[in-house]
């Protein structure tokens, strides 16, 4: 028996097996990535522009967003999730700030951190006009705080 050939066949066999296992592991990882989510979608419609008031922001509790509407500047959507540890912040009309109830973080009107342990400003999300005329918010797309959708 040719020992060299004997060993090499076993080795390539093992290599083939390892690659099969590697691909299987990859497939299982892909299997574990969910294709659908049983939770509110990241991109959703929030209603017609006319539904939103001027002045104080509308807070949408399920979506955890504030919808701002300025008379001249247009629409902007801020995240209500504190960048520190994920509590839901409240908007105070009195001082035009966002206050986090958990660890006292405070955010300015543009979402920037004024006080507390929060490491980053609040997120602002892209808001666009869908083809049927409704406002569409996409939480996967963050925008600068100066972003406005003029309707």
């Amino acid at each position, binding site marked *: 028996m040719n020992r060299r050939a004997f060993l090499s*066949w076993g080795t*390539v066999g093992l290599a*083939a097996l390892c690659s*099969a296992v590697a*691909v*299987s592991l990859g497939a299982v990882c892909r299997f574990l990535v969910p*294709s*659908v989510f049983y939770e509110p979608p990241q991109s959703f419609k929030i209603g017609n522009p006319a539904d939103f008031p001027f002045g104080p922001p509308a807070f949408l509790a399920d979506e955890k967003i504030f919808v701002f509407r300025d008379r001249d500047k247009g629409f902007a959507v801020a995240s209500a999730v504190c960048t520190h540890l994920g509590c839901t912040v409240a908007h105070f009309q009195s001082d035009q700030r966002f206050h986090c109830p958990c660890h006292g973080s405070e955010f300015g009107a543009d979402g920037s951190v004024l006080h507390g342990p929060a490491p980053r400003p609040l997120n602002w999300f892209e808001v666009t006009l869908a*083809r*049927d005329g409704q406002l569409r918010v996409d939480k996967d797309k963050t925008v600068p705080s100066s972003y406005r959708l003029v309707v």
Partner: protein
Amino acid sequence: MERRLQQLFFALSLVALALILAAAWQANTPSWKTYQKNFLQLEAQGEPNAVAKAAVLATPPEIHQSLLPGLQRVDRCTTCHLGVEDPTMKNAPEPFRYHAGLGPHVPARFGCTICHGGQGLATDKESAHGKVEFWQTPLLAKDYIRASCGRCHKEGDVPDVPELAEGRHLFETQGCRGCHKLNGVGGSIGPDLTEEGANRRAPEWLERHFLAPNAVSTGSAMPNFHFTKEQARNLTYYMLSLTSEEMGTYFSSMRSIPGPAYGRQLFIEKNCITCHAIGGVGAKTGPDLLGVTKRHSPEWLDEQLVNPELVYPGSAMPEYDLEPNARKALVAFMASATAEDVQSILSGKPRALAPEQIAIEAGKQNFARFGCVGCHGTELQGGVPNPNAQGGEVPSLLHVSDDYTKDEVIAIIRNGRAPPLDNPTGPTPPLYMPSWKHVLSDEDINRIADYLWSKQQVKKDSW
């Protein structure tokens, strides 16, 4: 030998690798991705410049779904039917075409399958359209989709679907409940129909069945009611709408549609006739309501119904605390009401009748509502075939008093009875008299007996 085995091991490992790659490739190329790609191309055509086109085309493929906990379903139809809410897709080819006339019934809130049927969870055409083994509710044919309105709108009128109300009316007047249970009330001779719309049979089957029960279901005990084609269609619509599925509060709050039939019901319930007349028929305390919708705007009428004093100072009309839909329904009724209508309302009222007449009238109504007419006939003529029962058919009730006392008849209604057999060794006749004592009160049964006695005919050959 050893070398051969190692080669075999190598070959089998390669095969395993190939198989797992094949499975991954198969999983990565579902048909819905092709649909999405085609849709993006269609969408890109409408974009003005190359940058926007490229942005549209770069949209990653993803499964779209409407989570509908209130309707207990998840619909993924919009994964392929991408243009449903996009008016610019009005003339696009299917599956991308715009769905006109959705009104408040947007997919995000209602999904698709609640009306159309099909398998909402599926993501390939054949399974999604439900035309596969082991899926009971395939897509409804176009002619029958409107029947689905009745799945949520169980009471009142559904605009543009008169079939539902007609079907319900037929069901309640033709004695279907005599044999069939619906929501717990009815006989046990035929199948329970509570879930008839949920375990949907083919609508075509239902329609043919109503025209000739025996032709589609051999040996069926159901009599041929000689329905017209239109009546069969209406009943089919009603059947398709039957389901005990809990549609959730949001949906049930919208159930009563503000139409004239609901308004008529309210008009009777709230005793409007005590003060008002229509076309001169009724009381004179309040104004005559004929043409009231022409004299006032709907908004005025609505406010009047909310707070009569405010609109019409010094009005004696009480506040009725009606919800908006009820007010709309009343206005709709007033717009269509006629003097004859009020006449019929009044004649339906027991108060207008003599006491013994009241009993007979109530008996007659129960006789129809609880399904006695299904077998014994609207004119008590009987005659529905019942093989191997004495006489071979359900007996006429026009001569009961010849053979029974009133008490005996009441006992039969209360306790039910298996018909006497023609041939004692033959099969059990399919139809029998059910026991009604748990469904009807003694008073109701007495009234039915009164009604029967009011209809007795003297035998011609008696002397």
